[in-house]
């Protein structure tokens, strides 16, 4: 097995995908904690569908680096979704479902009518081959910027996530922070979507945060734990998918394997959380 892993790392495209994927996993986990707690989880999901539409558009226009189209359009969608949920005219979750299916539909019509069938699966479920040339630098740059912004604003993000009214009373521009959060999420979705797939990227955002919350009960530990869980699951998912494919010859998609790894760890942490609560209860008695 060790030989297979060494072989995996000898492919330059795999190394590129691992760099981008690792960075995206970190960012997704950090943002995921706030998104889950603010009940914004579905925004990530909605944005990934918009991302799918923009990938289709980029392919139809024949643009080599689709990030140049996807980044501005998904950012725009993020601001739109946030306003829609805040205005309360259409309920937040309904607004997201609306935008999701709308852009998925438009995206698939564009892709199909241009006869780009082969790419469709790649867009939806991701491909490790997706990170090429220029994309590596744009993606890494975005991911590092997101992680830096998160650390820089950590204390304010905590306060705004915990209690919007109190933060507002102490002079924090809560609206601005919500907008920044949505923008950072949009960037992570766009960058991560290529490797993970439009339909699976939201798993990367939601799973690690929920996993960490099963066991940890303070904010800092939850943030650190979800970052670690996310990165570990990403690498083990990629490695296991390659090992399985080499050993059995069965096709094993990388993005799906990463999500399955996240699911397994989530279940393990849930069990650990229950066991700990039971033990504590016994101690008290």
């Amino acid at each position, binding site marked *: 097995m060790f030989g297979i892993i060494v072989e995996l790392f000898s492919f330059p495209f795999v190394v590129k995908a691992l760099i981008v994927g690792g960075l995206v996993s970190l960012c997704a986990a950090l943002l995921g904690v706030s998104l889950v707690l603010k009940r914004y989880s579905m925004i990530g999901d909605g944005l990934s569908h918009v991302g799918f539409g923009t990938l289709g558009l980029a392919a139809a226009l024949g643009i080599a680096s689709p990030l140049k189209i996807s980044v501005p359009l998904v950012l725009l969608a993020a601001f739109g979704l946030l306003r829609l949920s805040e205005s309360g005219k259409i309920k937040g979750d309904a607004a997201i479902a609306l935008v999701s299916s709308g852009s998925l539909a438009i995206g698939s019509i564009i892709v199909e009518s241009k006869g780009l069938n082969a790419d469709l699966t790649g867009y939806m479920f991701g491909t490790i081959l997706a990170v090429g040339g220029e994309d590596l630098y744009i993606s890494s740059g975005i991911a590092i910027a997101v992680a830096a912004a998160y650390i820089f604003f950590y204390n304010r993000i905590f306060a705004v996530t915990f209690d919007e009214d109190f933060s507002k009373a*102490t002079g924090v521009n809560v609206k601005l922070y919500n907008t920044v959060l949505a923008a950072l999420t949009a960037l992570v979705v766009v960058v991560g979507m290529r490797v993970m797939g439009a339909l699976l990227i939201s798993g990367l955002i939601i799973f690690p945060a929920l996993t960490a919350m099963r066991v940890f009960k*303070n904010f800092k530990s939850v943030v650190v734990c979800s970052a670690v869980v996310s990165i570990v699951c990403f690498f083990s998912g990629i490695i296991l998918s390659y090992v399985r494919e080499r050993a059995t010859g069965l096709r094993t998609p990388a993005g799906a394997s990463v999500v399955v790894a996240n699911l397994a760890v989530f279940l393990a942490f849930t069990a650990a959380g229950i066991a700990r609560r039971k033990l504590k209860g016994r101690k008290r008695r």
Partner: protein
Amino acid sequence: MSVLTCENLCVRYDAGLIIKDLSFSLEKGDYLCVTGENGSGKSTLMKSLLGLLKPQSGKIALNGIDRREMGYLPQQSSSVRDFPANVYEVVLSGCLNRLKTPFYTKRDKERAREAMRLTKTEKIEKRPFGELSGGQVKRVLLARALCASEKFLALDEPAAGLDSAGEAEMYGLIGEQNRERGVTVVMISHDVKTAARYANKILCLGGAGASFKTAEEYGKNAEV
């Protein structure tokens, strides 16, 4: 010297004008108890004072305190019940208005410790916020408010949902801040009789219009 002056304040909430033409002023070190029926605009008034709601007309003037220097204790923390945060993290977040760099300074952390000592929450420092009892939650939120300000506290029903011992303790803690540290307090309370023991001014909101009295006047009226 008045620290807070409301002049002909009108605030709209949802569809209607809930506060009409309200005027009053507070001196430094005053303890104002705001009372009135449900829906009479108590919380709306407090949110306007804090700058969370924009008044329709009239004005709120502050003197000697910055709007950001108001320690707010909301009635219901808008956070979800199982929010992963421990007591120390919540209290420290009260220092948010002092945050100049990305991180809290040593002084901020000392301030949080002091606030926990004053509110007797230092022993539960590491406990998850979601697992606290009602009384503990209120004391932790008071500690957070104390971190935010040493001049002005805005407390929305700080004793709601507490048993009589918890209530007495809570009022005691607030009274101490008012008397010993000269903190100006605006407190919303249903329970006027108890609150009037500590407050020196009472503002009664309600259908017949608002009445603003000193606690002495209020006491005389109550006897009649």
